[in-house]
């Protein structure tokens, strides 16, 4: 088997990269794919928390690279999804402990026995980002409909396009608030796509449910869950129409509609 290495990145921190990686990994696993998620944010690990695996970690990515354990020993099996494993980042070292070549070696070994190798990139455009994208066959850029997140996404896309070996890049617009978009106070998905001019692979609505599920370290429920599952299916090559986010507008929205406000 030769799986695909997909790196999830964003430029700006706090846009939902780790949440996206965790939920995509869980969605793909629930669709019977063999998945391994690598936390490439050395020194600031969090993917373990999002996946509810923080107290099962024995070895980490740096241990693998420095030969203290076998790759298999660093893989933490997910409790709910037998076909999903996590390779945690080291919490005590920093990103210089790993080189792009190390990432390529690890990813190449993993893709022999997995359908998907997901890499959660750290924020920024330096060492950690370069490590995370080095082995990528594809990149997913996560952004929010906010000026700073869009600008940083554009920078990342520019850097990826300038690579010696450019790979396909697709966009996830996370935390869209439809009510605000309708009032004209938030960039719409179309706005963001037209500015960045790359293919869209998913739209995730802003939903408090995400906070709840990350508190518990479990997969998202409700509409975000559906959004992540749709992205997982699109990654698998299925044609999935984009979610109609128009239903279930806020109370004020419905009120405004009722009185004929456009």
């Amino acid at each position, binding site marked *: 088997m030769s799986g695909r290495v997909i790196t999830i990145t964003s430029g700006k921190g706090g846009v939902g990269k780790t949440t996206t990686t965790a939920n995509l990994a869980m969605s793909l696993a629930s669709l019977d794919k063999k998945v391994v998620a690598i936390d490439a944010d050395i020194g600031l690990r969090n993917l373990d928390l999002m996946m509810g695996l923080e107290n099962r970690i024995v070895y980490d990515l740096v241990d693998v690279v420095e030969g203290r354990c076998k790759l298999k020993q660093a893989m933490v099996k997910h409790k709910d999804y037998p076909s999903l494993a996590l390779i945690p980042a080291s919490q005590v070292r920093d990103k210089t402990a790993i080189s792009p070549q190390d990432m390529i070696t690890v990813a190449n070994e993993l893709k022999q026995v997995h359908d998907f190798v997901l890499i959660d990139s750290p924020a920024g455009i330096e060492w950690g980002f370069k490590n995370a994208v080095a082995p990528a066959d594809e990149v997913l850029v996560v952004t929010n409909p906010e*000026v700073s997140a869009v*600008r940083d996404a*554009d*920078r990342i896309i*520019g850097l990826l396009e300038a690579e010696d070996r450019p790979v396909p890049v*697709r966009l996830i617009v996370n935390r869209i608030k439809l009510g605000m978009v309708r009032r004209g106070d938030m960039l719409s998905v179309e706005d963001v796509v037209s500015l*960045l001019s*790359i293919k869209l692979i998913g739209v995730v609505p802003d939903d408090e449910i995400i906070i709840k599920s990350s508190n518990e370290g479990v997969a998202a429920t409700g509409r975000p869950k559906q959004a992540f599952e749709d992205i997982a299916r699109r990654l698998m090559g299925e044609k999935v129409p984009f979610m109609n986010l128009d239903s279930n507008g806020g109370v004020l929205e419905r009120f405004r509609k009722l*009185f004929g*406000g456009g």
Partner: protein
Amino acid sequence: MSNIVDRFFSRKDQRSAKTAMERLRFVLVTDRSQLSPEKLREMQAEIIDVIKKYCRIDESAVEMKLELRERENYLVADIPLAKSVEQPNEEPGRIAFSLQTSNSSSKLEDDDLD
């Protein structure tokens, strides 16, 4: 009624998303081209000096700007020629050119999605 509701929802002349779009359009093309507004003005002055060696132009109406088209960036210039004194009825000529500044030569195709 609609007006009252609109006012209730504080409809301004321009909504913030539109402002965000305009600001991002400007900042993205500046970031991508690494050409600051200051540098652009400098370049415009130099280009005008060169053109003036060859023909008379209406300097006050010269417009030079960076423009975003997909993932490609253009330098777009509008340079109206000055009206000729000898032939006052003639329409003013104009020079218009655009110069691509993009470095994204390799457009990636992906047929997974339409």
